[in-house]
């Protein structure tokens, strides 16, 4: 415990000296987030300084091994770092699919050369990755994907298309599921490839969302040449990697539901906007009751995320299939949270453009959350995983 306390003190002092004041203010939208990548334009000097300093310590990925650009911190030390960052309102220096998804998969399945090549670049925010999983006819039934990779001696030739590829138009590289065996059962003919979005034959086309933004794309592959060295793991065994990666993705998406804890709760927002009675209670009894129940669930859910992580760390494993619990519960909670924020907003939640609503920040945020229970596997698919794998209920 003493060593951990010492670490806390050092961390606090370092953060205090190194986190720029501007990086201690709340993030107000997607464009405040540092995603990194070859073409990333920093919003401010402070954002760049913060990334550089944190990356130099390995603290953009504090739990990864030092030799791959991480901080080499223990589970408990990572918690302390996060707590200390939260205490001063420090922003995350870097967010990316590389950190959330590809990194953990490469640590578990990548070759030494692949780890050396890709992990430090992810840690420093130099390469931005996107995820090529879903296809027009392979959504929940992901394993039925049809994008093909033909064996051409020392390389593959990739042809097909992906859809809903988040930030494909901004990403530098893609981790992509392709079919390498058409005769095997569907789960046993899939491979996991890495390639560059600038290579010949790759193109993207943005898709407009109901929130009015275009964060994701259709992605087309027209005979893309991919060296065999870019295959991760074993040929035709990519499904194992795909699933492992999804457990990390789901844990991360589910964690968004804990947002109730981090920022102001919808109850505090509503109390500000609607007002309170003489006792300090939100002046809308119906809304107050619903927000209170959501608050109970949010706090109980935050404890669940912490418990799962602590149990995983003390057992030396990941969260595994229980990521489906976090994904399901956390995303449904986040949708509820935004429904409550819209109820609190009333008429003020109807403005779509204009300065006073920050271009309809509230309704656009509300609409965005509707995707939470779809992206990364739908709520129905999560419930299937819980029923089949955790509860071992029989197949139909």
């Amino acid at each position, binding site marked *: 415990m003493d060593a951990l306390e010492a670490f806390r003190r050092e961390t606090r002092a370092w953060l205090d000296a190194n986190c720029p004041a501007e990086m201690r203010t709340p993030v107000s939208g997607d464009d405040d987030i540092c995603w990194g990548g070859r073409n990333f334009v920093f919003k401010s000097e402070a954002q760049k300084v913060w990334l550089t300093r944190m990356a130099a310590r390995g603290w953009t990925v504090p739990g990864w091994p030092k030799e791959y650009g991480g901080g080499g911190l223990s589970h408990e030390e990572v918690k302390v770092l996060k707590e200390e960052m939260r205490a001063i309102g420090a922003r995350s220096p870097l967010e990316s699919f590389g950190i959330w998804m590809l990194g953990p998969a490469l640590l578990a399945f990548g070759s030494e050369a692949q780890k050396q090549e890709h992990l430090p670049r992810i840690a420093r925010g130099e390469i931005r990755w996107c995820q090529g999983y879903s296809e027009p006819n392979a959504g929940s039934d992901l394993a039925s994907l049809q994008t093909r990779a033909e064996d051409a001696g020392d390389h593959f030739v990739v042809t097909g298309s992906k859809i809903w590829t988040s930030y494909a138009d901004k990403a530098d590289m893609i981790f992509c599921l392709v079919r390498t065996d058409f005769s095997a059962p569907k789960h046993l003919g899939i491979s996991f490839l890495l390639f560059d979005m600038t290579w010949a034959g790759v193109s993207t086309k943005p898709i407009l969302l109901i929130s009015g933004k275009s964060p994701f794309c259709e992605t087309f592959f027209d005979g893309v040449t991919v060296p065999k060295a870019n295959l991760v793991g074993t040929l035709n065994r990519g499904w194992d990697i795909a699933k492992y990666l999804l457990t990390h993705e789901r844990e991360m998406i589910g964690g968004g539901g804990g947002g109730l804890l981090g920022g102001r709760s919808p109850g505090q927002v509503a109390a500000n906007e609607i007002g309170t009675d003489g006792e300090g209670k939100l002046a809308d009894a119906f809304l107050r009751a619903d927000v209170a129940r959501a608050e109970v*669930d949010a706090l109980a859910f935050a404890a669940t995320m912490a*418990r799962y992580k602590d149990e995983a760390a003390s057992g030396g494993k990941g969260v595994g299939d229980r990521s489906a619990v976090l994904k399901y519960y956390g995303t449904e909670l986040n949708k509820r949270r935004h429904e409550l924020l819209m109820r609190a907003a009333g008429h003020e939640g109807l403005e779509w453009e204009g300065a006073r609503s920050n271009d309809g920040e509230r309704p656009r945020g509300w609409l965005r959350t509707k995707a939470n229970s779809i992206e990364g596997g739908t709520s129905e698919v999560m419930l299937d995983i819980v029923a089949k794998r955790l509860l071992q*209920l029989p197949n139909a």
Partner: protein
Amino acid sequence: MLVLNDDQVMLQDAARGFVSEKAPVAALRKIRDEKVTDGFDRDLWRSMAEMGWTGVLVPEDQGGLGFGFVGAGVICEEMGRTLTASPFLSTAMMAATALSRAGSPAQKERWLPAIVAGEAVIAAAVDEGRRHDPAGTAMRAERHGNGFRLSGTKTYVVDGQAADAVLVAARTAGAAGETGGLSLFLVETGTKGLSSERLSTLDSRGAAELTFDGVEVTADAVVGEVDDGFPLLEVVLGAGRAGLAAELSGNAQESFGRTMAYLRERKQFGRTIGAFQALQHRAAHLFCEVEVARSAVLAALQALDTDPAGASLAVSVAKSKASSVARLAAQEAVQMHGGIGMTDAIDIGLFMKRMQVASTLYGDADFHADRVARARGF
């Protein structure tokens, strides 16, 4: 770390073994069918004392085990799985918390060894009406000579029908609705003017309605501070609420587990009903809720061990969540069992009945959601 440590895991294993052998659901049926007036089995309570459970919250230097709230909660959770009837909550948790933290040396000497030995049962008498409302306490304790004279009625006093003494909240100043002006007294049940009526309750464990008709006590009966008993009462209730939340978590886990077993076994339309996605998704949703309730309970127990006075938010989250989840688990259990779920022959209905009692006591899901809202500023 939100995990049990090695000692706590050992205690959990021991508790599970003990209750499944000595106090399975069949033991509750026996208490019900034989109309045992205490609402629990005194021999079982003595065996629990031999296991050390009665001293789980009594510090080691006062003769207990000092296992803390996580340890106590682990025992409650296991008793929740088997619907074990015992005065653990009233005596080993609430009274032991009050006396070990705020009892006078004489009170400690008189009662703590008796609690640890399994010889004394002490009930907490707080509520006076249909809703849990500690600040609404109206019962008066008027100064009288060197002592006090208590007048009023306490209802649904858990284990009151079997108690040797009651820890009673009464008003020495102020008006009902105020947190100031409350004091706690420890009154032996044989004291003149104190009468008890046994209430038969749906969980078969019973409770008492206690009438204080000018009951005279000396100043030595006061536990803690005169007029400023509310903070202590909150800590004592915190112990009770957390214990009930842990019990409800055990109750929910068990009725859920029994339901899953039934889904794997019962066949209709030529297949096991657990293969129907409509039931799978409800089962999966319920599992998630049970998991979330378990986490909230552990967080509350740990918070109580860290700082009992600062744990009220975590305790309310746990009591609110465990109450509503145990309710959902009981409802789904009956529904997914079909007709057999409605019969007295299987135990599912007993879990539902106890759920109703445990979720109502010391504040239901709404009461605690309201407290969470206040604590969070709205």
